[in-house]
């Protein structure tokens, strides 16, 4: 199960700054740890996170091995028009999660 949770205010005033919080379920295995037998545990992390607002990219994050498991990414954007926010996480081993959240701007 690859789960992600996004929190977007369902409605906002035009021009208002809205806070968006995202939480992705991922172990973020660094690639530097070893098993008890000394074998390297291969890296398995989320590499990028993007958020687009009606097709326009409003946030892009590059993730690296030192970032905690289940990364919480919170950011703000300006509510310009009603529509949808599309969130996408991409990572090692073909990890891809997409979430879509609607927003109503009045």
């Amino acid at each position, binding site marked *: *199960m690859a*789960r992600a*949770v996004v*929190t977007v205010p369902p409605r906002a005033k035009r021009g208002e700054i809205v806070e968006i*919080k995202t*939480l992705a*379920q991922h*172990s*973020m295995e660094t690639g530097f740890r070893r098993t008890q037998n000394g074998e390297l545990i291969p890296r398995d992390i989320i590499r990028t996170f993007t958020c687009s607002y009606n097709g326009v990219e409003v946030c892009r994050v590059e993730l690296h091995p030192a970032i*905690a*498991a*289940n990364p*919480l990414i*919170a950011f703000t954007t300006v509510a310009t028009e009603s529509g949808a926010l599309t969130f996408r996480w991409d990572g090692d081993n073909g990890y891809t999660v997409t979430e879509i959240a609607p927003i109503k701007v009045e």
Partner: protein
Amino acid sequence: MSPRLLLLAFFVVAGAWAGEIPLEQRRSGYDLMSRETQKIQDDDATNPGMLWVLDGEALWSARAGTANRSCADCHGDAKASMKGVAARYPALDATRGKLLNLEQRINACRVDRQKASPLPYESKELLALEAYVARQSRGLPIAPKIDAKTKPFLEAGKEAFHRRQGQLNLSCAQCHDDHWGKKLAGSVIPQAHPTGYPIYRLEWQNLGSLERRLRNCVFGIRAQVPDLGSEELVDLELYLMWRARGMRLETPGVRP
């Protein structure tokens, strides 16, 4: 028992009871952690434990086993049927004559009703189901049932809590009754109330059960670590729940 042994036993007991925390002075580990960590827990949008709760919600209605039944087929909506359940576990299973914690109860249900194999301790699925069930009791007071039948388990748990063990020769009580609020290395010693289990522990980068936490502590005092699901741990869980009676559940808790 010789008079000397009796006297020794008296001092052990008297010494143990002296440090018990008065009910009104009890504080959840939540109160002793940083404001930042409290905020992670408070907001469902930032609490990583909620990822497991959502997984558990999906598993609740997923059919399993040769009986091809889901939890929901018997128990219906967990929001109603599981409300308050986690607050009274560990509880006695009459047919088995054993004290079961919530994980063991879930597995007993899987084996008896779903005819499925039990989920391994600390597996993602078991923790998810436990978190989902316990989430339904958030805000409710902890109330394990103590009667003539469960009393022996409570006494055994109490004895384990006050027993010095390991190479450091420490009991749980010496830290958590007598020295809570002080520092052990850089960390505040909490009172050890199981108010938020299963917890998302930042150190683990993962969700974990009370038993995992207890095993951590036992390992820390360099004692023989009991197996997950062993009677000793379940008895201790019952004592800790009784010790935290009336305190509110916070599941899923976040701890440093």
